């Protein structure tokens, strides 16, 4: 059985999914990549927006009236990813 992800691990998975897509991703893709429900993802995105780890942008699309919503990772978000990787390495090394 898979281990339940902690809150921080979920945040890491969300940010990693954005980084793996070149720093910007559509919310629907993010939902699939991070394996979260729509409701849960929205909750997390709000929190990440407040903490300035991500940005929500709207990009105009040709032949479409509604602009495309994208989630973009900030420099602070990238630093969080780096710090989390170090933390995980420390955890694995010292068996914590």
């Amino acid at each position, binding site marked *: 059985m898979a281990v339940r992800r*902690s809150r*921080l691990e979920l945040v890491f998975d969300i940010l990693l999914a954005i980084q793996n897509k070149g720093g910007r991703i559509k919310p629907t893709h993010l939902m699939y990549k991070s394996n979260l429900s729509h409701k849960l993802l929205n909750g997390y995105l709000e929190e990440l927006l407040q903490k300035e780890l991500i940005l929500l942008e709207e990009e105009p699309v040709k032949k479409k009236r509604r602009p495309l919503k994208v989630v973009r990772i900030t420099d602070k978000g990238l630093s969080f990813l780096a*710090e989390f*990787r*170090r*933390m995980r*390495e*420390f*955890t*694995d*090394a*010292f*068996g*914590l």
Partner: protein
Amino acid sequence: MFRLFFTPGWFNGYDLLFNSVGLVVALLIAAYSWRVYKFNRENRFMYFSLAFLLVSISLAFKIFTSGVLYYFPVRETVYQVIGPAAGPGLRYSALFYRAGFFFQMASMLGAWLVIFFVSQKSRARLTKFYELSQIGLFVYLLLLISVISNFKYVVFYLTSSVLLSLIVLNYYKNYITTKKNSALKVMAAFLFILAGNLISVFLFLQNGSYVVGEILTLVGFLILLQTYRQVVRR
């Protein structure tokens, strides 16, 4: 003058230098673990930080007590400070040294015990009542051992070796699970510290074993430092 055991005279001072290296390494790991605790608020990191803080406290006590024993000027200064309390001719100086060695041993054994508990994989560890009561019992036993070790130092090195063996076993399991180079290094580091303690058990046969024991312990701390740098610089 009170001596717990006799060490080769030419080595006096070098061991304090080695212990200072260990103290710095322990403080670095304690500080990083505390930082991780502040980041994710998971108790195991706080306990791990506490364990390495205890290692550094133990080494600080060892450096201070041995420094006073080795160096005359330091002894004189300490005499000036504690002289009025210790009585004429420092009648209670043995008590001072015994207290120094007691705190050194109690905090080192406490540190190994906490590392042993924390390195056992369980998320619920150290939060349940029965686990905490077990720790309470262990703490009592460690304090008792630390008192007895003041009269028979071999008890300290033997207890330390038993705890370190259990830690090495946990880190071996961790390496098997993670297959990471850093996990292997941590296991190797504790293996060296264990070897250092085991060799020190034979101080009663040959006081040169103290030198070998201290060198092996230093190697252990240097491997820990290298692993710490590898992890943090990533």
